[in-house]
């Protein structure tokens, strides 16, 4: 049981480049989330999804896009990378909100934009 898997673990992008951060979970969780973690700033919600085909913006969505074509996968897309997007990105999932539990997090993607 792998839980939440994120790839890649590390990436360096040049300004203006694009990339997709992959996230997949094998727990049949409906709810999935993307957070970014900046030093001393906690985690900020970028996008979230309550099920396949349904996504919505979080607190800091600008510069990002997501899709949710299957229950398992929730990729995060950066279209035009900017230095402000240098951060560590975490994907998380949870079961339905009527079963109140904690999140299961992936191990993160450390992104540097130069």
């Amino acid at each position, binding site marked *: 049981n792998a839980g*939440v898997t994120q790839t890649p673990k590390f990436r360096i992008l040049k300004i203006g480049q694009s990339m997709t951060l992959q996230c997949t979970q094998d727990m049949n969780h409906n*709810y999935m*989330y993307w*957070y970014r973690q900046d030093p*001393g*700033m*906690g*985690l900020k*919600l970028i996008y*979230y999804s*309550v099920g396949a085909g349904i996504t*919505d913006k*979080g607190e800091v969505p600008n510069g990002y896009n997501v899709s949710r074509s299957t229950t398992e996968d929730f990729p995060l897309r950066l279209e035009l990378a900017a230095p402000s997007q240098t951060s560590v990105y*975490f994907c*998380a999932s*949870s079961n339905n*909100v009527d079963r*109140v*539990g*904690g*999140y*299961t*997090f*992936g*191990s*993160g993607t450390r992104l540097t934009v130069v």
Partner: protein
Amino acid sequence: AQSVAQPEDQVNVAEGNPLTVKCTYSVSGNPYLFWYVQYPNRGLQFLLKYITGDNLVKGSYGFEAEFNKSQTSFHLKKPSALVSDSALYFCAVRDMANAGKSTFGDGTTLTVKP
């Protein structure tokens, strides 16, 4: 809007001594509160949660947390600290009426010295 505050950036304790990591919260309805731990270069791991019931909740690795409604606090505690408890700790509040989105505090670095 919900919010979480962790008033201490850093907590230092000696091994074998009790530890407390503080958290206060603000929510409009019933609070759903969580503690997570993050080890270096890893994702966050769920420690414990308060949903309802007993104000003292027990979690993983010997940690417990005390919910205090009148003080809107949810402090993390452990009777006897271990060097291996050294990590970054996050308090979070979850909005179960809004897609289960979580708001995280900025984190507290716990250092346990031998």
